[in-house]
């Protein structure tokens, strides 16, 4: 069957060629450059004065309280948003089971937040959380005193987290809903016949078959959440008192405000490692079953 001559490229090579070309052309150099930066004292204004500093930047990481704070906040952010978003998305997807009037309208609404740019959403929520803003006004309606949500170090990060959950739930709900519709009704009928309640049905029918989709949602959301940045930049710039300083916010600051590209690179690779570790753990825990679980 394989009668190929030596110099003919096999199809797989052609299939991978476009990706490889784009990658080689536009990403190998920047990635290598940014990796090398971690070992340098590099300042864009003064490239000629670049010095090799070995692992000094890495060592700095360990004694840096700002990095520690950013790390802590980022992990808090990930742990606080990803499970909540996933659970809520599952819940909303479950709500849409079966025949519901206006289902299309609901799906469209769920999709709306994804259409807006993150900057616009962050700005809107900045207004929302402001002293005279909608949230405080609503609370006043219930007789509850308003609060400086974004200016209180204790509430600033949770406020941004809540916004992130709002922005992400709809999209993932649609994804999970689509995945759920692939579970054959016969299984649900069988469960009903066996007298299984809602929770048992979920645990033994829905969840195992949704594992790939849930894994997908978890991994993607985790990677994305580790890189939370634009929202922080727009709403609080890392304050108040560093309570919303995240790893990428810190990276951005270090590179573009303090002009210390080398150290910024180290922070970037810290994010890279963390995302990698978390993703691998998530993927292992949620290995798909051998049955028909279809990820999207």
């Amino acid at each position, binding site marked *: 069957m394989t009668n190929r001559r030596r110099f003919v490229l096999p199809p797989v090579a052609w299939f991978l060629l476009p990706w*490889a*070309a784009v990658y080689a052309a536009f990403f190998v150099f920047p990635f290598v450059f940014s990796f090398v930066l971690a070992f340098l004292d590099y300042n*864009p204004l*003064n490239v000629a004065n670049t010095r090799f500093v070995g692992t000094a930047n890495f060592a700095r990481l360990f004694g840096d309280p700002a990095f520690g704070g950013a790390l802590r906040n980022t992990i808090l952010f990930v742990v606080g948003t990803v499970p909540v978003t996933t659970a809520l998305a599952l819940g909303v997807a479950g709500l849409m089971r079966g025949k519901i009037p206006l289902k299309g309208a609901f799906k469209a609404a769920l999709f709306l937040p994804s259409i807006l740019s993150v900057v616009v959403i962050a700005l809107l929520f900045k207004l929302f959380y402001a002293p005279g803003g909608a949230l405080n006004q609503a609370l006043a309606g219930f007789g509850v005193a308003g609060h400086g949500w974004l200016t209180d170090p204790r509430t600033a990060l949770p406020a941004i987290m809540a916004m992130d959950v709002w922005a992400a739930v709809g999209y993932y709900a649609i994804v999970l809903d689509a995945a759920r519709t692939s579970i054959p009704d016969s299984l649900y009928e069988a469960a009903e016949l066996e007298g299984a309640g809602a929770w048992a049905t979920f645990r033994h029918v829905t969840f195992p078959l949704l594992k790939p989709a849930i894994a997908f949602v978890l991994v993607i959301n985790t990677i994305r959440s580790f890189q939370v940045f634009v929202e922080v930049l727009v709403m609080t710039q890392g304050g108040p008192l*560093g309570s919303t300083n995240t790893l990428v916010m810190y990276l951005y600051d270090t590179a573009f405000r303090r002009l210390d590209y080398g150290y910024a690179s180290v922070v970037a690779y810290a994010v890279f490692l963390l995302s990698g570790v978390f993703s691998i753990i998530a993927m292992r825990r949620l290995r798909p079953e051998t049955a028909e679980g279809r990820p999207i």
Partner: protein
Amino acid sequence: MTPRRGFLRYACLAASAAVLVAFAACGDKEKTGDDGAVVHFWQFWDLAVIQPLVDEFEAQHPDIDIEVEQLTWATGLEKIQAALASGTQPDVCELGSTWLPRFSYEGVLEDVTPVYEAERDSFLMWESALWKGRVYGLPWVQGSRALFVNRSLFRRAGLDPDQPPQTWDELLHAAEKISQLGTGIYGFGQNIGERYVLYKKFMAFAWGNGGDVFDESGEVVLNSPAVLEALEFYLKLAPYSLQEKQEVLDQYFKTGRLGMQVSGAWNLKNYKLEAPDLDYSVALVPKPAPDHGAHASFAGAEMLVVFKASPQKEAALQFARFLQAYPQAKKLSLAAGSVFPAALSAMHDPDFTTDPRVRVFVEQSLTSRTTPAHPGWIEMEEAIDRAVEESLYGRRAPRWCLDEAAREVQEIAARFQR
């Protein structure tokens, strides 16, 4: 179904090699100058505002072609950095006064000391352009901060709106009285929770009291008694203040719920458009006591620089001086509505002295200070912001905060020894 595996590798390797070769061979793109000179100018104002000035210059100098590019305030700096890193920086660039010292320190700016020597008495705001005895930038436009006073709230509180607070005690008294008018009404506005603002407001009080970050000999005096007094006074204002981001403070003032705040001239334009009936006036920032200190305030300046590596230095400098000159700076200021020329001629120009509010801003610039011209300023301002914020949030005692901040500033300064 396993095709020759090696070929995949070769394909990728070949692609990478080809690209790297192409990349190495490409080299720098040369800037094409036609017959005359092309001067690239990067700046932050709306093109509609800056284009008339450019056109005028080109009309006067037919052999020079100006290419303008607009940068955004939020991300313009990244672009400048990318350009410098790749050798594609413009010839003339607008830089904020807080940024300039770092650029001077790194040696990327053209020395314009001769211009300074010729023009020094005609302009304010040279300080940020000075580095090690030489000058590296031209002050273009500036904006100081002054005290906005809501006259209706003053009246309601039993205060005389025509006698805005002149001293710290008067300021504290007024803030207290106004905040007693009811919930949701605040006497004073204090910035909190965002970067790049707080130190501007706080330092005004420190400078007014004779304090500063560095003294003449370059010693760090951030934790001196003068500054500590200013911080303690600032904390006294806290119970009667709305502590929020700049936007919110401006908004509250606009809707008549904030008695006083130190803010900038951009509000003059905004309030005229959005709250034409607001009864307010502008006053100099209060000084510590009738016989002590000064009405100091913060002023930020937009400076014009020429990059040392520019192939069109002469034309670039010519253009920069043109922009800096009073007629052009004035046109820009009037069009933008939020800044004033750095040129002293503005002090006597009826366009800037007739409107009482505008006149106060112009007057305030005479006693305004700008941030220390230190390359590490961006980090230092962060330390100062943090110190004041920590005191405002009641986390730490003011004395401790200032000592910490002084120590950090010292550390940062030590890193910039070139």
